[in-house]
């Protein structure tokens, strides 16, 4: 009687330990693994979807945001090879050099044209003594208006590319939520799936509201003020500098919060998942005679496979971000360098108005560069968490 009670108790405990929140294998019933993953992902991400999309549709939309350099893979093995090649230092350096070589001629041309405008300012400054103060102010104002218009024509497309990059980043983050969460869940990392999905959703929110919703309108507003400043003595240097410092502080603080939250939640979630899986493995190995010990080996094999898949997916995401951001960052840095040189040149010729406009535009590029680098680094951090997260089933 006592022995029967012990057997019943062990069976009950075994069943309770085997009850995982989500399983990748099919349960008895009609639900498929993809549908189960999508259901859990919907629950984790907090979004409501009336009709569950197929994984192929997610992948198609995901690949549409890839840059041309990251496309072209036909098979999974070829894709893994391209990811491995792309994440190499040599490839990245070559891509950076090609980006610089591609952008440099255009920026050099713009630099030379703007240098010519600065020389015109110098000529006007040399004629200052011959003009009356009122006449000089009229001539100077007209030349400043022409310079600002030319500056806007030269660099407005760069701001549009920044806005497009941030939109692509947001789209990529949205589509990576189910992808990353699914990869976490297949290894039994329920806590990490929740943390990773929340981090990506948070990144998407930041991109939508902080970058695209605040940065781009702010840049347009500053451009407007710079243009208005060409009419009179409106000084925008202090305002631009103050808002630039405030914006970079907010960006840095947000980055710290998101990364700290992701680190803590991933660590705690992984620990909890690991405890559950290890307890289950011990119970199965102890209760089931002869074949129970093979469960551990099977799970280890599964863990190794999942690690490969996660590393490839995470590495692919990092490669996409790097190849998307490198040309834009190179262009922003080149434009910033050109504007700094032009400001110095204008200062040599005592063209105070031109110096003010060049420095104002350079501050705008600082804002765009901060947003691009912030969003890229945060996404890379989240992808690296996926790559480093060991499967709980291993």
């Amino acid at each position, binding site marked *: 009687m006592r022995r029967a009670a012990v057997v019943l108790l062990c069976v009950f405990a075994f069943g309770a330990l085997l009850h995982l929140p989500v399983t990748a294998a099919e349960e008895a019933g009609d639900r498929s693994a993809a549908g189960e993953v999508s259901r859990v992902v919907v629950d984790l991400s907090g979004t409501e979807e009336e009709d569950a999309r197929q994984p192929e549709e997610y992948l198609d939309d995901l690949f549409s945001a890839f840059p041309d350099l990251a496309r072209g893979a036909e098979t999974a093995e070829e894709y893994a090879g391209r990811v491995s090649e792309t994440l190499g230092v040599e490839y990245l350096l070559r891509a950076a050099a090609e980006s610089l070589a591609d952008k440099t001629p255009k920026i050099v041309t713009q630099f030379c*044209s703007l240098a*010519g*405008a600065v020389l*015109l300012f110098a*000529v*006007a400054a040399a*004629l200052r003594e*011959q*003009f*009356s103060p*009122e*006449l*000089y102010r*009229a*001539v100077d104002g*007209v*030349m400043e*208006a*022409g*310079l*600002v*218009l*030319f500056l*806007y*024509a*030269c660099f407005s497309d760069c701001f549009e590319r920044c806005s497009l990059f941030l939109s692509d980043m947001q789209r990529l983050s949205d589509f990576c939520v189910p992808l990353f969460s699914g990869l976490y869940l297949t290894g039994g990392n329920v806590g990490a799936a929740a943390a990773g999905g929340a981090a990506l959703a948070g990144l998407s929110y930041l991109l939508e509201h902080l970058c695209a919703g605040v940065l781009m*309108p702010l840049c*347009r*507003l500053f*451009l*407007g*003020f710079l*243009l*208005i400043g*060409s*009419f009179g003595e409106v000084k925008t240097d202090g305002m631009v500098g103050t808002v630039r410092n405030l914006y970079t502080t907010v960006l840095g603080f947000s980055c710290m919060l998101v990364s700290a939250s992701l680190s803590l939640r991933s660590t705690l979630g992984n620990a909890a998942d690991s405890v559950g899986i290890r307890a289950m493995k011990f119970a199965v190995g102890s209760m089931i005679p002869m074949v129970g010990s093979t469960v551990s080996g099977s799970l280890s094999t599964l863990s190794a496979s999942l690690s490969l898949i996660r590393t490839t997916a995470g590495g692919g995401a990092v490669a996409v971000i790097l190849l998307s951001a490198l040309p834009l960052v190179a262009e922003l840095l080149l434009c910033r360098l050109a504007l700094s040189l032009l400001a110095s040149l204008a200062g040599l010729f005592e063209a105070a108005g031109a110096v003010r406009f060049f420095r104002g535009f350079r501050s705008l590029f600082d804002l765009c560069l901060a947003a691009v680098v912030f969003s890229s680094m945060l996404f890379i951090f989240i992808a690296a968490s996926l790559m480093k997260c060991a499967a709980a089933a291993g």
Partner: protein
Amino acid sequence: MVRLCGLALVGAVSVLLLREGGSKWSAFAGVAAGLLLLYELLDRYRQILGSLGALAGNAVFSECFSLSLRALGIGMLTAFSADTCRQMGEAALAGRVEMLGRAEILLAALPTLLRIMELSRTLAGGT
């Protein structure tokens, strides 16, 4: 350059001689000498300005370049006229010439200024 300096010296000597002779044509001699100098200067820099304009292949830059040159040219003519009026003792007329010169500069820049105002309104409005 030697020719310009020689022209200026000849003009100065002519004005001095006419003034000492009590002639009323001294002021006109000074204006004539100044006009000749201005003509020589513009003739010398016409080719250079034409080359610069050809190098300005960018449509926006050529528009800004021509606007800046036009403003400078109007300013130089206005300054020359105002100085000549003051030399003849007509300070009020010089002031009016300068006012007309500023108005002419603003009229020349009006299309560009309207374009900037429209652009500012669009940017600030977020559309």
